[in-house]
């Protein structure tokens, strides 16, 4: 079956929706997503939930160690741990 230019699958819509949360979806992808959002309940639900998750994580100001900081912490700890 020929792939439609405007109509995308639910999985593709979810993938674009994920990318959009990180501003990595192109305008064309966003357009295709908005077409799908007009008629697909599953995509609408996923989109709403995904957006909410982004908002929650942003508003929490959650922090975590970056890989280098984590490695430094791990090295220091392992050194001590080996003495026990």
């Amino acid at each position, binding site marked *: 079956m020929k792939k439609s230019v405007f109509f995308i699958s639910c999985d593709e819509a979810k993938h674009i929706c994920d990318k959009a949360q990180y501003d990595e979806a192109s305008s064309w992808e966003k357009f295709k997503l908005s077409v799908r959002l007009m008629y697909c309940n599953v995509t609408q639900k996923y989109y709403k939930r995904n957006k909410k998750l982004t908002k929650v994580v942003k*508003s929490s100001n959650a922090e975590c160690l970056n890989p280098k900081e984590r490695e430094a912490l791990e090295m220091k*700890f392992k050194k001590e741990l080996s003495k026990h």
Partner: protein
Amino acid sequence: MPKHEINPNKWIDLYSDYLFNYTISRVNDREMAQDLVSETFLAGLKSMKNFKGDASERTWLISILKRKIIDYYRKINSNKGKAEVRIGYNDDAESEGDWLEERVADPFDKTAEDTLQNAELGNAIHSCLSKLPQKQADVFKMKTILNYETEVICNELNITASNLWVIIHRARTAMADCLEKNWL
């Protein structure tokens, strides 16, 4: 028999981010937060014999960390004089009086309640992250919390971009499920 067991080999993987998030929301200094987390783990190692297993490892480590944070603030307060000098007072004649305005509470600034709620939400996020498979948690943290570029994460973890998006999708679905149960 104790309800909980202690295994320091897994502490870094399981609790370092949770403790770090807990600390940074209270001390607001990244380097200091790392030091306090490191000190907590080391103190935990030293007092492992005292772990009775009534509480979970995480709760036990948090109780050590809380004491470390209190000690940190005690230390700062003992240097209060120095801290006061650090307040930048501008004695430029033209901007005379501006300093008072700067010290008036900003209505758009966070309230104590907001800060507390954000700290709790941050803890809930880290609790949910600890339930994810390690790779999903790592990718989610790097992409969503540390805001790394896709390419950087792919290079760091040696995965392809399409792989990354599959992992992100799974992680986001699991995170939304977990947060809906525990927070939203």
